[in-house]
């Protein structure tokens, strides 16, 4: 299929959620009514000054926005190339970018009179961010999490329970994020009348990819203003990690029409793309339909979804948001992959050189910055989304290095 290059990248998706051939609504009939109800509410409230005012106030006073843009001078000098600027989403309340979206969707749930919130989570950051806003708004909250992820993210499981959420262990399939999503969909289809499903990434059926993106573009809108204020111009390139791709689209989207800004999305290469043990559908997958949308998937020749691997639970997902699929095909963004080992090197580098412990997810973006920066000139600027902090990953990193905490 010929891909049309748009003149305005902000006019997507179309009415039914298509980004070119990607996106759309691929769900069973029972959910169609709920999705159209959600779409109406989303379209209405995104134009509603009172709603947007409330959202802005929460982002400022509860989340702590704007998050800083930090010039990692020492690290930039050490790498000997471009100046690296970090968008500090790790400093948000709950420790990652996820809360930008859960606040938005929970306010929407409240407006739609839904009393019960459900969510899926991989690393637990989205689960924590959901449980947090549910606690604050007094909503019942159920979080689905794969058994494998529960084992590697114990601390986040405990946080969710402290916040009053019920964490349901998912034991089907590969027992990771994709299975948690399946289970959350099953819950939603059963309890569709009183339940609002807060999807944590820019995947799922329309309007989720567009809606989650719109809640996350606060990252890119702030970063664009901040870097112009700090340096007098736009960055030369953007880098963000891509699992489902919400922090990445949040950073990228406000820059899509700035044609001179190069864009890099970084997937998880796990043990290496050639080993098959990775989570890089854009780099090494093919198009298909899963979880309500058409996008790039990790699948076998019969269309079965295959198991993924990444050291980072948040990137361990066989699909990716449909807008990324489209940005790949249109070549507006470049998608690359970073192995577990490379991500760990970057994890240690940022920790030791800048005193910032990054999440393993974000470490993938940082690792690509380590590759790209030295190929650039010192007067050039790289803007990297530091999407979350690494506190949750202490056990994973220690175990990998043979240290018992």
């Amino acid at each position, binding site marked *: 299929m010929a891909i049309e290059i748009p003149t305005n990248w902000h006019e997507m998706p179309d009415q039914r959620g298509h980004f070119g051939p990607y996106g759309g*609504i691929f769900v069973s*009939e029972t959910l169609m009514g709920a999705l159209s109800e959600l779409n109406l509410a989303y379209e209405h409230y995104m134009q509603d000054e009172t709603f947007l005012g409330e959202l802005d106030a929460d982002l400022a006073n509860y989340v702590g926005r704007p998050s800083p843009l930090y010039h990692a001078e020492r690290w930039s000098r050490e790498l000997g190339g471009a100046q690296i600027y970090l968008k500090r989403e790790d400093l948000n309340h709950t420790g990652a970018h996820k809360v930008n979206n859960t606040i938005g969707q929970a306010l929407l749930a409240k407006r739609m009179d839904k009393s019960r919130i459900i969510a899926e989570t991989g690393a637990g950051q989205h689960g924590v961010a959901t449980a947090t806003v549910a606690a604050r708004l007094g909503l019942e909250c159920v979080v689905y999490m794969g058994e494998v992820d529960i084992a590697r993210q114990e601390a986040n499981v405990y946080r969710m329970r402290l916040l009053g959420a019920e964490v349901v262990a998912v034991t*089907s399939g590969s027992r990771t994020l994709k*299975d948690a999503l399946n289970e959350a969909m099953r819950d939603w*289809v059963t309890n569709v009348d009183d339940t609002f499903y807060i999807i944590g990434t820019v995947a799922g059926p329309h309007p989720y990819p567009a809606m989650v993106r719109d809640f996350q573009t606060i990252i890119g809108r702030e970063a664009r203003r901040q870097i112009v204020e700090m340096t007098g111009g736009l960055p030369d390139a953007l880098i963000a990690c891509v699992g489902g791709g919400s922090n990445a689209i949040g950073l990228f989207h406000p820059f899509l029409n700035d044609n001179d800004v190069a864009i890099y999305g970084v997937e998880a290469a796990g043990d290496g793309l050639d080993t098959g043990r990775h989570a890089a559908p854009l780099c090494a997958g*093919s*198009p*298909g339909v899963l979880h309500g949308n058409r996008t790039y998937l990790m699948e076998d020749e019969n269309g079965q979804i295959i198991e993924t691997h990444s050291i980072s639970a948040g990137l361990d997902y066989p699909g990716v948001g449909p807008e990324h699929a489209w940005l790949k095909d249109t070549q507006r963004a470049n998608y690359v992959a970073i192995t577990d080992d490379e991500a760990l090197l970057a994890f240690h580098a940022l920790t030791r050189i800048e005193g910032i412990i990054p999440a393993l997810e974000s470490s993938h973006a940082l690792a690509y910055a380590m590759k790209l920066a030295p190929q650039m000139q010192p007067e050039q600027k790289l803007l990297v989304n530091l999407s979350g902090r690494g506190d949750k990953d202490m056990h994973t990193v220690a175990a990998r290095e043979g240290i018992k905490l």
Partner: protein
Amino acid sequence: MSRILSCFAELKQSQRTALIPFITAGDFEPALTVPLMHALVESGADVIELGIPFSDPMADGPVIQKAAERALKHNVSLRDVLQMVAEFRQRDALTPVLLMGYLNPVEVMGYEAFAVEASEAGVDGVLIVDLPPEEGGEILPLLYAHQIDPVFLIAPTSDASRIQKICDASRGYVYYVSLKGITGAGHLDLDSVAQKVSKIREITQLPIGVGFGIKDAATAEAMGKLADAVIVGSAIVQRIAQHQGDAEAAIRAVSSFVSELRAGLDRF
């Protein structure tokens, strides 16, 4: 006339309700499927819904999900499923077979290849759970052209305009999902099913099948009074699961259960 339509026309003449059992192709082993299909027909099935195993069956409950996992242990692919239908057709030229599954295996095979090969194998219809009519622009004309009847779900949450849209796209019959939820769940509310079915009848001439939550002869009988067909899935698949490893016992258990359902349906 398609096999599905002539089947329903005949049933209407004899004032009987169609019994449509569902099994997952390749569960619990590929060699079981074709003999089981014949046994279903001998025990009173009018149409067979044959599930295409998929790794991520989002709309299914644990029973059918596990059936798909058992089939996938044997790497049962969509082409293998078509092969099973072709084999079934060697001995049964009359009983309509409808494939039921998720879009991705069809998408990966290619819409046109699927329509052509399914038709050649003797498939009569297809129900793709995660394909609403709105997304069918490309595949539906190919299905119609190759005499594969697309069957769509109608849910308790579907309003009149959606029901219209669904019926316009459907051929063969429409499938009313009798409860909100996944396959194999919940308790049936007969009054609300009756209300909805009569609403659907105002909109379409197509036969109406009802499924989800029918687990024994009594519920089959009750549903049979309201609809043109009853679809039974999890309750059958459960019996296959109980006899894993013993094909003969599985066939016996399923046959005897389907005969009970048949008797329930023929009671009124």
